[in-house]
């Protein structure tokens, strides 16, 4: 009897503890009618952190009753942090999330519905690529923030030295340039990689593939989440990558983010944000860098992938109205000269494409770097990264399929068929 009482006490205490842990969102209400909002993001260092902190400080100064507090983690820890904190009832009021996670965050009731008036404005004022990357089904997840497109980076000097006089405009030219520029030492170790298709992590293998798939007219997932890549276009794109790996013009052990700057990579399919890093790392040698659209199988065809981030409001936030008020200000208030929004400038200063159409148009008028032009152009034709529930899992399955071809020399058709089987619509 005593034992059962003790056990009952333990279970009740455990349930209470669990209930407390799984309870409502963070109670960030302060005293005296003051509200404190928390904003969780991956803008943890450098200009991205400084810029956001500056805007938040500006808001806090003008809005003493609604104070915003930034919480930052590294990108690699963002989803886990969000998951753990949300489960523990300590989710931030405003979450900055990668578009790919949108579907699963929506399914799990993390992201609140965007109020109709705000959604209408966002849909009217943001570029299709940005909207596509942060919309699941018909549901907009929040304000689009970062927008990145994929392009082909190349080292002009290495291409010229190999007798390639103009950037490749078809897959055949791309393969030819990759094979001409690759260099190996006597032991067969790669000194210069022809074309980097990047290796570690889902993004780094899937994004280049999806860009090539887009250039061939293919698709990643259907609106219902079914695999669409296991077809003629998908097989052609993966065979193209596999052939380059088999010819040793592409190598999975080379990291372009480390070796491109020192002339160890001739060409790389990479996202636009890389511009900022390359300028800092290469200094004077940055003038050797050229950027062009990722070519397709035939002349005139091109493709890219657009992925985005968004800032949405936590469904458990007790101060949703204040959070939307802040987000609206954050995304709409303009710089002193009134030409672009402060957020647009913050993103453009980092080499990212401002997702707001008006900001994009303003920046496109006078791009400070000709290499930015193909990146901005890509926003008009890039395939938005799908983000329905299950998209992240599908991406990982595709990553594994790509790697079996690039690293293990598996048949592309079999690899894609296996990946397609692993994609389960939710």
């Amino acid at each position: 009897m005593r034992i059962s009482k003790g056990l009952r006490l333990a279970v009740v205490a455990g349930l209470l503890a669990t209930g407390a842990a799984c309870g409502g969102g963070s109670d960030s209400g302060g005293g005296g009618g003051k509200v404190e909002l928390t904003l969780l993001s991956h803008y943890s260092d450098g200009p991205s952190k400084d810029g956001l902190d500056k805007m938040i400080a500006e808001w806090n100064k003008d809005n003493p009753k609604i104070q915003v507090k930034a919480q930052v983690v590294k990108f690699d820890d963002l989803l886990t942090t969000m998951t753990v904190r949300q489960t523990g009832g300590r989710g931030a009021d405003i979450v900055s999330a990668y578009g790919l996670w949108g579907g699963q965050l929506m399914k799990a009731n993390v992201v609140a519905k965007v109020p109709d008036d705000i959604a209408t404005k966002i849909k009217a004022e943001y570029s299709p690529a940005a909207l596509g990357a942060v919309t699941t089904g018909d549901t907009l997840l929040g304000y689009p923030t970062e927008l990145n497109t994929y392009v082909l980076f190349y080292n002009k000097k290495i291409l010229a030295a190999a007798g390639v006089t103009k950037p490749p405009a078809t897959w055949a030219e791309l393969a030819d340039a990759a094979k001409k520029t690759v260099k190996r030492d006597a032991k067969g170790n790669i000194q210069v990689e022809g074309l980097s298709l990047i290796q570690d992590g889902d993004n780094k293998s899937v994004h280049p593939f999806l860009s090539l798939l887009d250039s061939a007219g293919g698709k990643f997932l259907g609106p219902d989440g079914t695999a669409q890549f296991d077809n003629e276009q998908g097989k052609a794109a993966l065979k193209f990558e596999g052939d380059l790996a088999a010819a040793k013009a592409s190598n999975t052990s080379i990291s372009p983010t480390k070796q491109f700057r020192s002339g160890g990579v001739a060409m790389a399919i990479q996202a636009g944000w890389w511009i900022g890093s390359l300028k800092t790392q290469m200094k004077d040698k940055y003038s050797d860098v050229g950027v062009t659209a990722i070519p397709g199988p035939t002349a005139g065809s091109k493709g890219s992938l657009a992925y985005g981030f968004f800032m949405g409001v936590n469904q458990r936030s007790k101060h949703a109205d204040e959070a939307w008020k802040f987000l609206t200000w954050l995304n709409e208030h303009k710089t002193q000269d009134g030409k672009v929004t402060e957020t647009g400038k913050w993103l453009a200063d980092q080499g990212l494409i401002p997702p707001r159409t008006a900001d994009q148009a303003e920046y496109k008028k006078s791009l400070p770097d000709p290499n930015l032009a193909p990146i901005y152009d890509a926003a008009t034709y890039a395939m938005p990264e799908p983000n329905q529930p299950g998209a992240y899992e599908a991406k990982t399955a595709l990553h594994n399929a790509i790697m079996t071809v690039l690293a293990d020399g598996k048949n592309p058709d079999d690899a894609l068929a296996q990946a397609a089987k692993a994609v389960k619509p939710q």
Partner: protein
Amino acid sequence: MTTAVSRVGAVAAPARRVGKLHREGLAAYLFLSPALLFFCVFLILPFLFAIVLAFSDWGGFDLSTLKWAGFSNFGDVLSFDGTFVKPILVNTLLFAFGSVFLATFGSVLVAYCIDRLSFQGFWRVLYFLPVVATVVAIGNVWKMMYQPAGLINAVLNKLGVNSVGFLSDSSYALPSVTVVHAWASIGGAVLILTAGLKAIPEMYYEAAEVDGANSWHMFWSITLPLLRPALLFVLITQFIGGLQSFALIIVMTGDGGPVNATNVAAFEMYQRAFKFGAWGTASAMAMVLFVIILAITLLQLWIARRRGEETS
């Protein structure tokens, strides 16, 4: 009167004993209650919750979105079309068996050698250092050593052997990580085995020496059989540790790659739950792993009991 008193006393004495026992029991339960509460909150309740989740479709965060899914999660997990059975479960077992074999063999050898050396404390501390160091530090150091331009490849190059992609080649990645896990576990096992060695009476060796036994005979016929209880403990704990290993994989390979070559069950569970929001599948995987660990542990205990070891 005397009789009556003694009879009353005869009844009262057991009653006092019962009362004392009652009080002692109450005190024992009171002392146990914090640990019991801890187990309930952090072990029993999550375990029960995981069982419920294994039969559900849940994206995390909000319990109102939890849906009954029957056995479909187990169907997905155990399907041969998926990746869990092969390569993930196969990787897990290879990793566990490989690391247990290497660590046990290595620790027996090391403990036996140390037992015959001077400055035994120093050697034990030396081998125990990896246990004290964090997995992250160990993983990162070995990761650097395994790099194409790392220490191990430099030695191989000196010997005229081309560089090996220890962590980038899917054929080498799992053995490479297994070796590190085994190496890092040796210290703890050595400590336990040394205690086991110290418990073996010296007279057995003296008698064997008189009978003309050599070192190998003494090791095989005295040391190993008498070391069995300690070895059993080492085997079981190492095996469970190997099957549940997670941190080293994530540190050394990041995503269980290349091409799932180092993906193990615990890592896949983490991915499914925290990365993909598929808590139902993750919990079903946890249940499958739990059953496997339980079965292997019971098998080990059963084999040990058949050989007459005291395991309780």
